[in-house]
C-alpha cells in the first residue's frame, strides 16, 4: 500500500480550526518521500497553509520523521515592537529571524533548505519536473530563469507536478521521485500565472522578502494523490525566460546536458562517482534541449505538443 493512498486522512478532512490546533501541537505530513513534522505558533499561517496543503495526507504522530521543523513567532530584539519568526530544524535555527509577515515563505524556504541539506540518499538536481502520459520533463535551471513559472503553467494545463525545486533521483536509477510542494512564484510571475489560469489557487502575496514579492501556487490534488509514483525522465529541458524572446526549443548534445546537470545539482560532488553514473544514465535515456520563451501560453503549448509528437 502506498503512502498517500485514498484512505489516508487529508488536511482537508480537518476544519481550519482543527488544523490550526495541529500546527501548534505538531502537524505530521507526507511530502513526497519525506515524513515531515511541522510546529508553528504563528496564527497568520494557518489559513494559507490550510489552503495550500489541503490535499496532503496526514501521518500518525508516532511516525519516524525525516525532519522536525518549527516556526515560532515572537517579539524581535532589540526592536521589541517588531514581530519576527524563527525557523528551526531539530532545535537549531539555520538563519536569522525574519519579519513575522513573511512567515509563510520562511517556512516554505525552510522546508526546502532542510530537504537540500539532508536528503543525500537522493541525487538532488535544482530542477522542476512534470509528467504526462508516463513521461517526465526535467526542467533544470539556475534561479531567475523562469523555471517555476513554466512548471506552474504546465501543471495548470494537465501535467502532473513532480516538483518545482528538486529533481530527486535515487543513485543508480533514472526515475524522478515526486516531491510536490507549493510553487513559489516571484514578482511579475504572480500576475503571469493569475492571467494564465484565473482558477489557480494562489496563496497570499508576501512583499519585501529577500526574493521580492512571493506567492505560492497550490499543487493539484492529482499531484499529491500520485506522489508515490515515480516517473521516468524522457526529456531534459533547460528553460530560460528572456524578455520578448520567441519560443524556441533547440536540441543540445548529451555531453552539454550532462555538464549542466552535474553543475546544477545540490549534492553531485558529495555523492561523487554514484552521481556521475546516475547523471550519465539519465542523459543516456533522454533528449536534451535548450528552451527559450517569453510567452507562457506559447511555451506550454509548444512543450505539450512536442512531448505528444516525440512520444509517438
Amino acid at each position: 500500500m502506498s503512502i498517500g493512498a485514498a484512505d489516508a486522512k487529508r488536511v482537508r478532512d480537518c476544519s481550519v480550526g482543527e488544523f490550526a490546533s495541529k500546527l501548534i501541537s505538531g502537524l505530521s505530513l507526507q511530502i513526497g518521500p519525506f515524513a515531515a513534522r511541522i510546529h508553528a505558533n504563528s496564527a497568520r499561517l494557518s489559513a494559507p497553509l490550510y489552503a495550500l496543503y489541503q490535499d496532503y495526507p496526514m501521518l500518525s504522530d508516532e511516525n519516524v520523521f525525516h525532519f522536525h521543523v518549527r516556526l515560532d513567532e515572537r517579539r524581535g530584539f532589540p526592536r521589541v515592537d517588531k514581530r519576527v519568526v524563527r525557523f528551526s530544524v531539530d532545535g537549531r535555527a539555520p538563519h536569522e529571524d525574519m519579519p513575522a509577515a513573511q512567515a509563510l515563505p520562511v517556512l516554505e524556504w525552510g522546508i526546502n533548505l532542510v530537504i537540500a541539506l539532508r536528503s543525500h540518499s537522493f541525487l538532488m538536481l535544482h530542477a522542476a519536473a512534470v509528467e504526462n502520459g508516463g513521461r517526465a520533463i526535467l526542467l533544470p535551471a539556475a534561479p531567475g530563469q523562469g523555471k517555476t513559472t513554466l512548471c506552474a503553467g504546465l501543471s495548470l494545463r494537465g501535467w502532473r507536478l513532480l516538483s518545482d525545486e528538486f529533481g530527486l533521483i535515487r543513485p543508480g536509477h533514472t526515475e524522478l521521485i515526486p516531491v510536490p510542494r507549493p510553487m513559489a512564484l516571484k514578482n511579475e510571475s504572480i500576475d503571469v500565472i493569475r492571467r494564465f489560469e484565473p482558477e489557480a489557487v494562489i496563496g497570499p502575496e508576501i512583499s519585501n522578502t529577500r526574493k521580492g514579492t512571493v506567492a505560492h501556487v497550490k499543487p493539484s490534488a492529482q499531484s499529491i494523490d500520485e506522489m508515490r509514483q515515480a516517473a521516468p525522465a524522457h526529456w531534459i529541458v533547460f528553460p530560460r525566460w528572456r524578455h520578448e524572446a520567441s519560443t524556441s526549443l533547440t536540441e543540445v548534445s548529451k555531453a552539454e546536458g550532462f555538464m549542466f546537470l552535474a553543475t546544477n545539482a545540490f549534492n553531485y560532488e558529495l555523492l561523487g562517482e554514484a552521481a556521475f553514473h546516475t547523471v550519465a544514465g539519465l542523459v543516456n535515456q533522454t533528449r536534451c534541449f535548450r528552451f527559450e520563451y517569453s510567452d507562457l501560453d506559447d511555451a506550454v503549448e509548444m512543450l505539450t505538443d512536442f512531448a505528444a509528437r516525440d512520444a509517438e
Partner: protein
Amino acid sequence: MNEQAGKEISRWLSTGPDDLVWAAWGHDHIAYHRPSGKTHFLNASSRYLITELLCEPLALDEVVEAFAPAEIEGEQSAQTTRLCAMLERLEHLGFVRQL
C-alpha cells in the same frame, strides 16, 4: 629531443587506469576523476592522449609522433606546442604525470 645529452628526458604517463571513469557521446567525453572527485568535459584528442599514455610512458616527441605526425613541414613545432599545453593541462587536472 636528444640535444641535451646526458640530461634525462622526461616522460609522460597517465596516472592510473582506475583513476578515471568515462562517459562518451560521439566526440564528447566526460571523465570522472576518482582521486579528486571532479568531473571534466574533454574532447576526443584529450581522451586519445590519456589512453595512449596508459599503454606506456612517452616523451614529448614520441607523443607528437604517435598522436599527430606532421605531414607538412613547419607544422611540427605548432603541434608540439599544442600537445605540450594539453599535457600540462591534463597534469594540472591530475590525469597525467611526468616520470
